[in-house]
C-alpha cells in the first residue's frame, strides 16, 4: 500500500476520494442491476434460453444503459470534482506532470468501475446460466464488451468533464438518448457510437452465429478504435490541463 501511495500518488488519492464519495456506491448500484434481471429470468417462466437471455441482456441493457451510467459516474467525477471544488491548483502545484495526473485519474476511475462492473457481471452470469449452459466464452465476451465500452466512455467523458461543468448530464444525454436516436434515424452514423463499438466487441468475442449485430466491426478494427479514442482523449485532456494555470 505504501509503495502505491508513493509510486502513483494521484491514483492513490483518487481511490481514497472514491471511497469517501457516494458516487461510487451509485456506480456499484447501477452495475448490480443486471443481477436483478438475472434473478427475474431465473425465477420466471424461462421462455428464452440462458445464452439468449445473456446476449440480449448485454446488447439491450448493459451496453446501452448500465455500462455508460456506471462509467460516467466515476469518470466525470475524477477530475470534474476537483474543478467543481476548486482543488485543481493544489493538484497542479505538486511536482507531477500534467499528463501523469490525467493518466492516473483515468486509471483510478477505470480500476474502480471495471471492478464493480466485473463483480456485477460475474454474479449475473452465475445466476442466469446453469449446468451445461454455463459457458466461459459467454463470460469472456460479456467482460470484454463491457471493458471496451467502459474504457472508451471513461476516457472520452473525462475529457468532456474538463471542458464543461455538467459533463455527467451531457454524457448521459449522449449515451442514453442521442445514441439511440442516431441508431433509429441514421443507421450509418451508428459506426461512430461507442455503444455500437462495445456491442461489436461482444458479438465478435462470443462468435455465435445466432447472435448478430448489424454492421458489426471486426475485432482488430474495434481494438484500433479503442486505442485511438482512449489515447486521443487522454492526450487532449492533458493538453487542456496544461493550459490551466496553477496559481
Amino acid at each position, binding site marked *: 500500500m505504501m509503495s502505491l501511495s508513493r509510486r502513483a500518488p494521484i491514483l492513490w488519492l483518487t481511490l481514497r476520494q472514491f471511497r469517501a464519495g457516494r458516487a461510487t456506491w451509485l456506480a456499484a448500484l447501477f452495475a448490480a442491476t443486471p443481477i436483478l434481471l438475472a434473478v427475474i429470468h431465473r425465477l420466471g417462466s424461462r421462455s428464452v434460453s440462458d445464452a439468449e437471455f445473456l446476449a440480449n441482456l448485454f446488447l439491450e441493457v448493459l451496453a446501452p*444503459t448500465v455500462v455508460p451510467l456506471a462509467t460516467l459516474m466515476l469518470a466525470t467525477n475524477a477530475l470534474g470534482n476537483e474543478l467543481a471544488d476548486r482543488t485543481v491548483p493544489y493538484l497542479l502545484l505538486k511536482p507531477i506532470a500534467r499528463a501523469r495526473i490525467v493518466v492516473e485519474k483515468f486509471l483510478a476511475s477505470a480500476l474502480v468501475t471495471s471492478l464493480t462492473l466485473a463483480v456485477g457481471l460475474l454474479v449475473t452470469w452465475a445466476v442466469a446460466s446453469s449446468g451445461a449452459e454455463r459457458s466461459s466464452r459467454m463470460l469472456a465476451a460479456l467482460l470484454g464488451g463491457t471493458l471496451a465500452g467502459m474504457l472508451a466512455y471513461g476516457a472520452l467523458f473525462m475529457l468532456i468533464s474538463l471542458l464543461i461543468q455538467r459533463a455527467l448530464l451531457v454524457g448521459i444525454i449522449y449515451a442514453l438518448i442521442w445514441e439511440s436516436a442516431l441508431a433509429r434515424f441514421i443507421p450509418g452514423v451508428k459506426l461512430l457510437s461507442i455503444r455500437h463499438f462495445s456491442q461489436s466487441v461482444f458479438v465478435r468475442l462470443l462468435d455465435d452465429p445466432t447472435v448478430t449485430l448489424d454492421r458489426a466491426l471486426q475485432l482488430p478494427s474495434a481494438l484500433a478504435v479503442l486505442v485511438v479514442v482512449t489515447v486521443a482523449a487522454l492526450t487532449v485532456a492533458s493538453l487542456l490541463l496544461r493550459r490551466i494555470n496553477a496559481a
Partner: protein
Amino acid sequence: MSSVPGDAGSAPAAGPYGEIFDRGYQHYQGRREGRAHAVRALTLYSMRRALGVKKRWTAKIIPIFLYAAAFVPVVTIIGVRALVTQVSAQLAEGFNYSFLAAAISPLLLIYAAAAAPEMLCDDRRENVLPLYFSRAITRVDYLLAKVLALGLLMGSIAIVPLLVLFVGNTLLADAPLTYLRQHPGDIGRILITGTLLSVYYAAIGLVIAAFTARKGVAAALYIGFITIETGVVEALSLAVSGAWKDYLDLFSLGNVPDRIVQWLLGPASGAGSAPVGAPLQGWTYLFTVAAVVTVCGVVMHRRYLAEE
C-alpha cells in the same frame, strides 16, 4: 501603568458606563412585501438560474438545446404546410398533437434531470438554507417556489409547442372560425396533458434532487432510475404469467407519460412505447401520476422539515 495595552480599554471610573452611540442606523421605512412577494421572487430567481441567465455559456447549452429541440420541428412543419399546400393534409395527419407530445416527453425527462438539481442541490451544498428561512418565507413556501419554478419551466416545453401547433392548425384551416368551433376541447386537452406530464416528471426529479449533494449525480440518478426501473418492469412482465400481469404497466415509470398522452390526445403513429401487457384504460394511469406526486410531495416535505 498606562503603557499596558489592556489598560487603555477600561473605562475611567468617573465616566458614564455603557454609553449608546448613534451610528446612523435607520429603521426600514419602505413597504413590507411579505411572503407572497418573497415566493414570487424566489420562483423567478430559480427559473433564471436553471436557464443559465448570467452564467457561463456551458450552463446555457442544455436549455438552448431543449428549447430548440421542442420548437424547431413544430415551427418547421407549420412553415412547410403553409408553403407547400400539396403535402399539408398528409403532414397534418402524421404530425398531430399526440405525435408531438410523445416526441417531447423525453425532452421533459432531460429538462427535469437538468433543472431539478439546479433548484435544490446548490442551496443545501452552499449552506444558504438558513438564510432563506430567516426571511419571510417558510419551508413550505420555499418548496412551493421551487416546484412552481420547475413546473413553469417544464410547462413552457410541454404545453407551448402544442399550442403553437394548435394555432397553426387553426390558421391553416380553410375556415379558421369553423375549425375553432369544431375542435373546442383541444386546448383543454393540451393544457391537461402538459400539466400532468410536467408535474409528474418534476416531482420525481425534485425528490431525487432533495437527497443528493452534487447536481451531476442527481441528474444521473434520475435518468438512470427511470430507465432501469422501466427495464426491470418490462423484464418482470416477460417472466411472470397471470391475470395481474397487465397491471404491471402502471408501474413502468418511464412509460406512464406515453400512456397519458395516448389517452388524452389519441394514439400516435410511430412514437411512444407499447404497453407490457394488454392495454389498460387510459384513466388508470392517473392513479400512478397521483401516487407518484403525493409520495414525492410528502417525502420532500419531511426532508425539508428536518433540514436545519
